[in-house]
C-alpha cells in the first residue's frame, strides 16, 4: 500500500490533481481512498488530500506518508514529519527546502510553457506515474472519459511532460480494481437516490452536503429529476414533503445547521406519514462550527428531533458502497412505512473517494405509492401494521387529505382523546415491523475476542484497520461492531457479542459518546471506556490502535 499527500493553498488545483490521479491509479488496478482536508475558504490557507492506494481494499486514510506533492512550501513544513524516512517530497525547483527527500522539478516553469499555469499539479501526476512504475500510454483515454473535452489535451500534455522528468522508484503492484468504480460518499448517496427513482430534489447549499446536489443537478435532465435550489432549508424540506405528497420520490440534503431548520417539517412528515429521505452530512458544530470538517455529533439530535413522538429511521452509511445501497433502502423504507428516514453521513465519508465494486441494481426494488384504490378511501385508515394505503392526489377519483394537526382516518382535524390515542398508537405501531427488518451491525475481527470496539457510520474504515493492527500483535484479541442502522437500534448481535466481551470501547467522532448513550438506553449495555475525537479530523486506524494500546482512552 502507498500513501501520498498533495498539499497547497485553496485555489491551487489540488482537487483536480487528486481527481485525475485517483482515477488513474484505480485504472492501474489499485483500490484508492482519497481523504480531503480542506479549509473553509476559496483561496489561500492550507488544504491537502491524502491518497492511499493498494491491492487490498483501502477504506480509510493514514498519516504515514510515502510521498508529498507540495504545491507550496507550507505543505512541506506542515507535513514533513509525517513522511517516512524513505519517502519523497515532490515540489517545484524554486521551493526553499533542504529536505534530502525532496525531488525538485521545475513544474511551474513547465506549466507556463504548456500554456496554463494551473497545471503544475497535473505535471506532478506524470512524475508520480513514473515513480510508481506506471505506463502513461493510456492516460489520454482515461481522461477523455471524465474530463471536459476541451481540457483533455492540456492535461495529457502536462502528465506526459512530468512523466519524462523522473525515474521509476516503487514497484508497481498488481491490483484487481481496474473495473471498479471510484466515487465520493456524497456521489454514492446521490447516485443511490437516482437509482431509487428520485424525482424531486430540493436543497439549500451547505458544506459538506452540496456535492450531492451538484451531482443530481448534473444528471437531472438525463434522469428526469427536478432539482430546485430553495430559498432556505425550511422551504427545501417543505417542498420535498409537498412533492412526496404528490407522488414524487423526493429528497433533501444538508448539514446539521440546515437540518436544524428542517426540524419542524421533519415532524410534519412524521404526523402526515409522508415518505421522505433527508441526508445530513455531518460537520462539527455547534452552529457554524468547522464548515468543511468532519464529526459524528448529530446522532442524538437526529433520533429526537422535532416536538412530539413519531417513528423514524436513522441510517449511517459506513462505506461508499453502503452509501449507495442504503440510500436506495432508505427510499424503500420511507415509502413502505410512510416515515421520514435520515441518511446520517459525514464530511469524512461524503468528501472522500473510495473504490467500489460496480453497483448492481438488478435486484433493486423500491416501493411506490398507490395510484388506484377501490372502496372508501381513508388516508389514515387504522390497520394492523399501522401503515395505511397511500394514494397520491389526482391519480384516482379519491380525495387525499393530510393534516399537521392530529386527525382522524380521513385526515381531518380532531380533538378527541380517543382518536388521538389511536392515531399515536397507529403511527408508533410501525416500529414493530420496522424493527424486524433492521440490519445488524457488521462484525469485524476475531471471533474469540477479548475487547469489543463499537462504532458507527464512517468509523467503519478506521475501525477495520484498527482491528487488523490490534490483532496483528500477540496478546489480547479484538473485534468491532460497526452500526449502519443506528435508530431504531438493532440489538441482537450487539447483545450476543457484548455478553462475550471483557471490555467494550466505543470509538466515536464526538465528545460525548452518543452511540454509547443510545446503547445504554436501549440495551443497558455499558461501554467500559471510549475513544472520542472531535477536532474535525477523522481518527485513523493507527490512532485508534495507539489510543487503545496506550490505554489513552477518555471515557
Amino acid at each position, binding site marked *: 500500500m502507498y500513501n501520498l499527500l498533495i498539499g497547497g493553498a485553496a485555489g491551487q488545483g489540488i482537487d483536480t490533481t487528486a481527481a485525475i490521479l485517483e482515477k488513474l491509479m484505480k485504472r492501474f488496478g489499485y483500490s484508492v481512498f482519497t481523504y480531503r482536508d480542506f479549509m473553509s475558504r476559496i483561496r489561500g490557507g492550507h488544504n491537502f488530500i491524502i491518497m492511499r492506494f493498494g491491492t487490498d481494499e483501502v477504506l480509510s486514510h493514514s498519516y504515514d506518508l510515502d510521498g508529498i506533492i507540495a504545491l507550496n512550501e507550507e505543505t512541506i513544513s506542515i507535513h514533513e514529519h509525517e513522511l517516512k524516512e524513505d519517502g519523497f517530497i515532490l515540489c517545484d525547483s524554486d521551493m526553499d527546502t533542504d529536505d534530502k527527500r525532496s525531488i525538485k522539478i521545475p513544474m511551474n516553469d513547465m506549466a507556463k510553457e504548456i500554456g496554463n499555469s494551473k497545471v503544475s499539479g497535473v505535471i506532478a501526476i506524470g512524475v508520480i506515474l513514473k515513480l510508481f512504475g506506471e505506463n502513461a500510454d493510456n492516460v489520454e483515454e482515461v481522461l477523455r*472519459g*471524465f474530463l471536459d473535452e476541451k481540457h483533455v489535451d492540456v492535461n495529457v500534455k502536462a502528465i506526459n511532460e512530468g512523466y519524462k522528468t523522473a525515474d521509476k522508484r516503487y514497484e508497481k503492484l498488481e491490483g484487481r480494481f481496474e*473495473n*471498479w*468504480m*471510484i*466515487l465520493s460518499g456524497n456521489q454514492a448517496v446521490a*447516485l443511490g437516490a*437516482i*437509482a431509487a*427513482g428520485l*424525482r*424531486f430534489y430540493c436543497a439549500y447549499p451547505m458544506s459538506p452536503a452540496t456535492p450531492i446536489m451538484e451531482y443530481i443537478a448534473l444528471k437531472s*435532465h*438525463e*434522469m*428526469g*429529476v*427536478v432539482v*430546485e435550489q*430553495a*430559498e*432556505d432549508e*425550511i*422551504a*427545501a424540506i*417543505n*417542498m*420535498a*414533503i*409537498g*412533492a412526496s*405528497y*404528490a*407522488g*414524487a420520490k423526493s429528497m433533501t440534503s444538508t448539514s446539521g445547521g440546515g437540518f436544524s431548520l428542517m426540524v*419542524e*417539517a421533519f415532524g*410534519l412528515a412524521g404526523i402526515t406519514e409522508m415518505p421522505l429521505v433527508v441526508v445530513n452530512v455531518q460537520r462539527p458544530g455547534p452552529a457554524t462550527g468547522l464548515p468543511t470538517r468532519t464529526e459524528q455529533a448529530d446522532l442524538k439530535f437526529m433520533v429526537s428531533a422535532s416536538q412530539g413522538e413519531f417513528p423514524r429511521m436513522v441510517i449511517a452509511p459506513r462505506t461508499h458502497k453502503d452509501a449507495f445501497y442504503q440510500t436506495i433502502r432508505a427510499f424503500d423504507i420511507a415509502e413502505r412505512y410512510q416515515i421520514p428516514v435520515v441518511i446520517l453521513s459525514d464530511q469524512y465519508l461524503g468528501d472522500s473517494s473510495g473504490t467500489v465494486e*460496480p*453497483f448492481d*441494481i*438488478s435486484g*433493486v426494488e423500491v416501493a411506490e405509492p398507490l395510484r388506484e384504490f377501490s372502496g372508501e378511501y381513508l388516508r389514515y385508515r387504522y390497520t394492523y401494521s399501522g401503515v395505511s394505503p397511500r394514494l*397520491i*392526489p*389526482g*391519480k*384516482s*377519483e*379519491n*380525495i*387525499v*387529505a*393530510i*393534516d*399537521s*394537526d392530529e386527525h382522524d382516518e380521513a385526515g*381531518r*382535524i380532531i380533538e378527541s382523546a380517543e382518536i388521538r390515542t389511536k392515531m399515536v398508537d397507529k403511527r408508533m405501531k410501525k416500529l414493530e415491523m420496522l424493527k424486524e427488518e433492521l440490519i445488524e451491525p457488521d462484525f469485524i475481527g476475531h471471533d474469540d475476542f477479548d475487547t469489543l470496539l463499537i462504532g458507527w457510520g464512517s468509523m467503519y474504515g478506521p475501525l477495520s484497520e484498527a482491528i487488523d493492527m490490534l490483532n496483528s500483535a500477540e496478546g489480547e484479541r479484538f473485534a468491532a461492531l460497526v452500526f449502519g442502522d443506528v435508530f431504531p437500534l438493532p440489538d441482537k448481535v450487539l447483545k450476543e457479542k457484548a455478553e462475550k466481551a471483557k471490555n467494550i470501547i466505543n470509538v466515536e467522532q464526538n465528545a460525548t459518546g452518543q452511540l454509547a448513550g443510545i446503547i445504554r438506553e436501549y440495551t443497558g449495555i455499558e461501554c467500559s471506556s471510549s475513544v472520542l475525537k472531535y477536532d474535525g479530523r477523522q481518527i485513523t486506524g493507527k490512532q485508534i490502535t495507539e489510543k487503545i494500546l496506550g490505554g489513552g482512552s477518555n471515557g
Partner: protein
Amino acid sequence: MAEYKTYETAWCPGCGNFSILECLRTALEELEKDPHEVVVVAGIGQAAKIPQYINANAFSGLHGRALPPAAAIKMANEKLTVIVSTGDGDTYGEGGNHFIHNIRRNIDIAHFVHDNQVYGLTKGQASPTSGQGFVSGVEPDGNNDEPLNPLLIAIATGAGFVARGFAGNPKHLVKLMKQAIEYKGYALLDIYQPCVTFNKTNTYKWYNERVYELGDDYDPSNKINAMEKAMELGDKIPIGVVYQEAKRTFNEKNEVLKGGKVLVDKKTDPAAVNKLIKEFI
C-alpha cells in the same frame, strides 16, 4: 354547491371566512374543476382551515409553510390545480421568505390570502398587515411597525398577477378567484376578510366605506401605475386586479418539466442508471 362541501366549520358566526369559502367553492364549480384534480394547500390559522371544509385534495401543512409544498406539488404534477388558502400572518409573517421567493419562481398556483389584518387563531395579536396603533394582548401600547403592503411588495418582487378582493363582495371575489386560478403563473389575491372577534378596526363597515371596484378603464399592465394604485390605502381602497403581466411559469422554464411533462409519471430507466454507474469506472 354540494360537491365541494364537507365538515362543519369552527369559525365564529359572522366571520369573513364563510364568504371566502363559499366563493372558493363557487369558483371551482364554475371552472368545472373536479375535486380530485384540485389540491388546497394551507398553513395554520383560521384561514388555513379552508382545506378542512372543502371537498378536494387537502394539504394542511405547517404555519407559514403553505407555499413551498404547494409549489412542489405543482412541479410534481402540473395537471393538478393548486390553490393556497391561508392567513396574513401565515403568509407575510412566518412565511414571508417563501412569499418573496415563490413570486420569483413564478409557479402556476393561485394564492388566496385571507387578510384579516390580525392573528385570528392565536387570539388577536397584530399581524404584518395590522395598522399602526393596533392594540392587542401582546401589544398593549399598540403596534408600532409599519403595516406591510402585500400588493406593492408582490409587484416589486415581480409577481405577474396581483389582486385584492373583499369577503363582503362575493360576486366580485368569485370573479377574481377564477381569474387567479386561470392565470398562468403565481397569482396573488389578497382578500380583505373581517375578523369580527379580534379586529375591531377593520370591520365590514370600515371596508365597505372604503373599497371600490377597479373599473374597466383601469389598465393593470403598467407597473408604475400599479404600484401607485397599490399604495392607495386611504379613504378609498381599490379591489380588483391591480397588476397583470404574462410571464413564463416555472414549469415552462424548467428543462425537466417543460412541454407539459408530468413529473410523477416519469420512470427511472435502469439502463440509464447503469450508464451513470459506468461513468465512475
